[in-house]
């Protein structure tokens, strides 16, 4: 389909569009980074059962809400991709906008959580659990922000009818951000 490939590329040696290959390899590198961090946390958590007590002070309701928000925003980005494939570019742009909104809500809730936790004295230096909590959710939040910037750029181009194939790519990235959160939520919030 015409939308799948960047317009200026004349020949691709495989059936997979270059941009999609690029995004997947990029995600591979990110998976190893987060995978490393999460594995380290799991290993140390196993050695320190007393972290369970600390973990009860995370706001489960906020975490659950955020999980829902991210999942919904993943849905909207999938719908945006579908809209592009049906050449409904304006609809796709709207859906990307909703995805961005989801990211924004996620960040606001996270900011609220951080503020609350810090006020209550659960700062990074308090215990290794909290060091991990802030590091992992912080790194994840940075990736949410990065994703939002990328989606924003694709959105702007899309409204001028340009580069529709990139909706798929930011969508794939956004799913990754969502999947990481789906690991973080139970590991940081729910296990106690």
């Amino acid at each position, binding site marked *: 389909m015409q939308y799948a490939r960047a317009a200026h590329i004349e020949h691709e040696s495989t059936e997979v569009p270059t941009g999609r290959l690029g995004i997947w390899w990029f995600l591979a590198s*990110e998976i190893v980074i987060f995978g490393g961090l999460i594995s380290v946390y799991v290993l140390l958590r196993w050695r320190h059962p007393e972290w369970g007590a600390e973990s009860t002070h995370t706001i489960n309701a906020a975490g659950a809400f955020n999980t829902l928000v991210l999942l919904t925003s993943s849905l909207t980005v999938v719908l945006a991709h579908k809209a592009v494939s049906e050449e409904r570019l304006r609809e796709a742009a709207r859906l990307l906008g909703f995805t961005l909104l989801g990211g924004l809500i996620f960040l606001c809730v996270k900011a609220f959580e951080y503020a609350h936790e810090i006020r209550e004295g659960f700062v990074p230096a308090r215990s290794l659990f909290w060091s991990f909590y802030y590091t992992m959710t912080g790194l994840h939040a940075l990736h949410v922000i990065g994703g939002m910037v990328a989606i924003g750029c694709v959105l702007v181009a899309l409204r001028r009818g340009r580069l529709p194939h990139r909706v798929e790519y930011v969508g794939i990235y956004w799913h990754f951000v969502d999947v990481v959160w789906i690991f973080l939520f139970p590991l940081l919030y729910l296990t106690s």
Partner: protein
Amino acid sequence: MSAGTPALHHVNQTHARSFWRTWVFSTDHKTIAKQYMFTGLALALIGGFLAYVIRMQLANPGQPVPGYGTIGPGQYNAVVTLHGTIMIFWVAMPILLAGLGNFLIPLMIGAHDMAFPRLNMLSYWVFFTSTLILLASFFVPGGAAAGGWTSYPPLSDRAVNSGVDLGVTLWILAVALEFAAFLMGGINFIVTAINNRAPGMRLFDMPLMVWMEVAASIIFLFSVGPLIAGAVLLLLDRVANTGFYDPARGGDPLLFQHLFWFFGHPEVYVILLPGFGAVAEILPVFARKPIFGYRMIVYSTIVTGVLSFIVWAHHQFIAGIDPRLATPFSITTILISVPIGITLFAFIATLWRGSISFQTPMLFALGMIAVFLLGGVTGIHNGVPATDIYIHDTYFVVAHFHYALIPSVFFAFFAAFYYWFPKMFGRRTYEWLGQLHFWGTFVFMNVTFLPMFFLGLMGHHRRIANPHFFEALRTPEADRLQWIATLGAIGLFASQIPLILNLILSLVRGVRAEKNPWRANTLEWTVDSPPPHGNFANVPVVRRGPYEYSAPGHSEDYLPQDALA
């Protein structure tokens, strides 16, 4: 760009492009390659100077080093740390991976440029920034990082432990940015090789250089993640008072070691493979014979890559890990010598019944094999836990890894540099200067590092500024060995002067190079020297593999990949 417009219009286009867009902020892979290479070579001068300081200090402990001054023990630690850090991350990786890879991959597969040219340019400027940050660390209060290139906590975890504060933080940031640059570059290499190949070029028609660069990029990509995580944790320990590596707060210093070496060991193959690739290209051309066992080498390389992920704890046999882990890791370590051996022996077999000529690229390629063999076999001494008890953290290890790294990084790079110089710069190099460079480098490399095996056996441990403090190292034998190594090092540095002269003279007044001065088969030799922007006016159609030399039934002893039968 509108749909359907071919990219051919890039070739030879006379845009009104400013100096800045052409030479500084260029998206052309060939320019980016040269930027990486020259940055790496410049840093090699610094890394080499630091090595000179180390050798002078060891031969003459406590005496001021000519050209540097007196070194206190704290400063010595920084010298040792930055020597290793610079050589691995700011020399080996940019010249071999980013430099050669960027220049050669598109040309060798028949592409106009990399898959993501702007990402490519970004990667260089991120790398350049990392270089500035690293160099800045020399000048901040407290000086540069001083915990070894391995930077183990708790020494590196708190400023109070090492006496260095900002220097270590900057070191971590510089390394992290360097990693980011090479991740960007690596993704570019991998995607380009998968998707930008010229019609007819199947994966098993790609030159081994491309295979090796891609394999190195994949290994890097999969191994660096955990260390990025570990480095983030180290940084947070330093600036946010967390306790990830602090045993008093539930952390574990050994955790960092595992994260470091999980990357660190694959990293040595990341650095080794491009050099192997260069040798794999050069041997057939100068022996006029196909590479022996092309597919065997590809499969061996893949096996090496996979195995490289399960050997890491051989750096930690006596680090405090459970001793029962040592023998399993030793077995995997021993296993990995097999695919490496296959590649090396395939190289040697390529010479059998060849017709060998000894221009500088071939001298360095052969020298690489000859010297690397010693590095390889001494890996066994290190990889067996019971002997590692003795030689770990001694100069035996230092000798081992220099015997592995100098051929695979420097000899191989020099081989590649002399070989592809005509293509890169459109000029021939001066052969006599090249020969001088080779013989000096080859001889003095051995003079410098062979004594270190024996110093290690005598008990000389690593990263000490004054061996005379120890009785066994105060003997006339030890002193003699130190002096031989030091004079060797001076000879080694002096031997690089012909290279610098050659570079300058060739660029300024070297004979202009034709398209294919070496009568080689790969696609880069079908275009002008240097290639125009966009490389190929017409995308070549590939009809055969890259190593059809002296094929029966042809009058010429070479057959380019795109030539009609």
